């Protein structure tokens, strides 16, 4: 794994590169890359996996004006603008929210889009919670809502990464909780062929129709696929399956993407 630092405006972005091959960009989820390394390494044997850390996550700075997920998406948009041609993008949970925002704002930057358990829209009514409220969940049970994989052993560095990540999530996702009310109206702008991937045993997203709604709001170019037995962080729990699905999807969409 190699590290690169790039300056986007006032933001110093820490970019991790895994493997080699045609590039794909992975926009990470709530806990950064801490628990996704296995998936990223595996994907790296087929592609060069580019993982720019969102402002506020360990490695990347957060200029004080970056206060919302749309601000985060603008930084990632500029990263994508650095590629010569449209690039496949994979978004993981909160990273799926960022990916959807970028794809909706600048459709031409994204060759194909895989959204793994994307959050960021609200489907339910005003008294419903689409997501479990992690802020009334005991700290030692929060991770378990997302994934059943234990991840690497806890040490001081791991703990600081997690605490930093949790603060970033609190900043961007407190209220409106884990969504932007406007995003569902922008999803129709996505032109990239899109695959929404979710798990049948998601303990964080409470609505059974959440992900199919997400795909439906994007439109005809989007499909939804549910993986049996997987929780929210499908890429952590079933990295092999997700890598295979991503490779297949990216390969099948590349010829079409090249023609755009």
């Amino acid at each position, binding site marked *: 794994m190699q590290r690169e630092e790039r300056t986007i405006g006032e933001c110093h972005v820490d970019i991790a590169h895994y493997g080699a091959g045609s590039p794909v960009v992975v926009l990470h989820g709530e806990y950064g890359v801490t628990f996704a390394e296995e998936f990223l390494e595996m994907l790296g044997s087929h592609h060069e996996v580019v993982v720019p850390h969102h402002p506020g996550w360990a490695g990347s700075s957060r200029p004080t004006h970056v206060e919302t997920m749309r601000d985060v998406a603008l930084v990632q948009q500029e990263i994508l603008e650095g590629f010569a041609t449209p690039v496949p993008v994979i978004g993981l949970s909160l990273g799926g929210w960022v990916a959807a925002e970028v794809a909706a704002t600048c459709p031409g930057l994204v060759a194909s889009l895989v959204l793994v358990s994307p959050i960021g829209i609200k489907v339910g009514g005003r008294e419903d919670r689409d997501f479990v409220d*992690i*802020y*009334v*969940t*005991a*700290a*030692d*049970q*929060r991770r378990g809502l997302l994934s059943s994989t234990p991840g690497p052993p*806890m*040490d*001081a560095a*791991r*703990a*600081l990464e*997690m*605490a*930093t990540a*949790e*603060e970033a*999530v*609190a*900043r961007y996702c*407190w*209220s409106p909780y884990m969504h932007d009310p406007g995003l569902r109206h922008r999803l129709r702008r996505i032109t990239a062929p899109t695959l929404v991937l979710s798990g049948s045993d998601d303990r964080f997203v409470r609505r059974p129709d959440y992900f199919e709604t997400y795909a439906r709001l994007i439109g005809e170019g989007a499909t939804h696929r549910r993986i049996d037995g997987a929780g929210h962080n499908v890429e952590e729990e079933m990295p092999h399956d997700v890598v295979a699905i991503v490779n297949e999807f990216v390969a099948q969409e590349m010829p079409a993407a090249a023609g755009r």
Partner: protein
Amino acid sequence: MFRTYYFSEMPYPYTPTLEFAEVARTTMPTRWFDPDAAHDVYHKYFDLVLAADDIGLDVMFNEHHETMSNMDAAMPLSMAIAARETRRARILALGNPVANRPDPVRVATEMAMIDVVSEGRLDCGFVRGVSYEMSATNARPTDMKPRLYEAIDLIVKAWTSHDGPFNWEGEFFHHRQVNIVPRPFQQPHPPIWVTTLSPSSAVEIAERGYTIATIFNGKKVCGEIFDAYRVELARLGRPEAHPDKFAYSNFVFVGESDEEALAAAPKLLDFLRQSRRLAPGQTDVPGYIDARARAAALAESGASNPNRGLTQGLGDPLALAETGVAFWGSPESVFAQMRDFFYAVGGYGNLCGMFHASTMSYTTTRRSMELFAREVLPRFREEVYEPWLKEHGLKSTIGTSGDAERSMDISAEAGFVSPPAGVH
């Protein structure tokens, strides 16, 4: 003059005990709350506020939300009752949770009304609010310190601008045409207090010249916090702070004898017991607690358990008196505890005493307050406080409690510039 502010958390004390419900704060369903019973206890608490006024003490209010441990969920309302019904006591808010409340101009207005109705008896405290009450206003837990201080700046400007509307477009608050009526009674504005539990936060409070208040942390930690304030003043080249810039809160109970007083200890300590019955996830709030501090806890235990130690002893009452978490005993004992604490922390001028908690009766509480006001406070002022002021070359302020004079004296000492009296 050394002041003692009476307070109670104003609990609804009839909740199910630990055996039936582990969580008592924030998420306990209100089907356990009987408004009829609450009616009686609210009036008991306001009767005790009047008693304090009568006896020669001052009064303090604090605010908590969504919890039966404190029914004063909208503190300005209690303060308004006190403003109208008390005659001489100073009325302390400790405090307005302005890092949470979305509308500082409204807070400025509420406090100004209380100051005018009470004829200038308001002491206005501001607090960050506890981590487990973010849901009270759903404020974001990140950047709370800068948000607290921007709110205070906007409030002070609202209190002190008298030339027509001003504009405010800050980092956290936007407000056009601010022009509050009424303007506060005290000039240039009521004294400001800010609470803290850490020495690092004392630095900003000292720089701003506010009164610093801390709670329940005993001689050693309270001393460290007060010292951090003093060190900052020295660093800024400012004169030594008057002790009335320092405030400490703890349990206070005075009995005819030590034994009688210590018999009241369990009910007072019940406040701490109830306070710890917290819902999961609500103390360990990312952003509220600095990432490095949370990381240290995460690395160590992998979890935060707010109810850890719930069933452990809260400490021997005598030990709590020794450390200063409580002042309780006979008048002689309480005097000695207060004296020792005073010297240990380098002097202070305001005691906020939790004289009441749990199901303590009006009678029991009032008797303790009377013994304190008659047998402890005058002696403490005469034998400890005033001599200390003289020794430090500070202005002696002997007078009756609640003199409106005090704010003018203290304002001058604090360096506030008092404009000429009268309408500008």
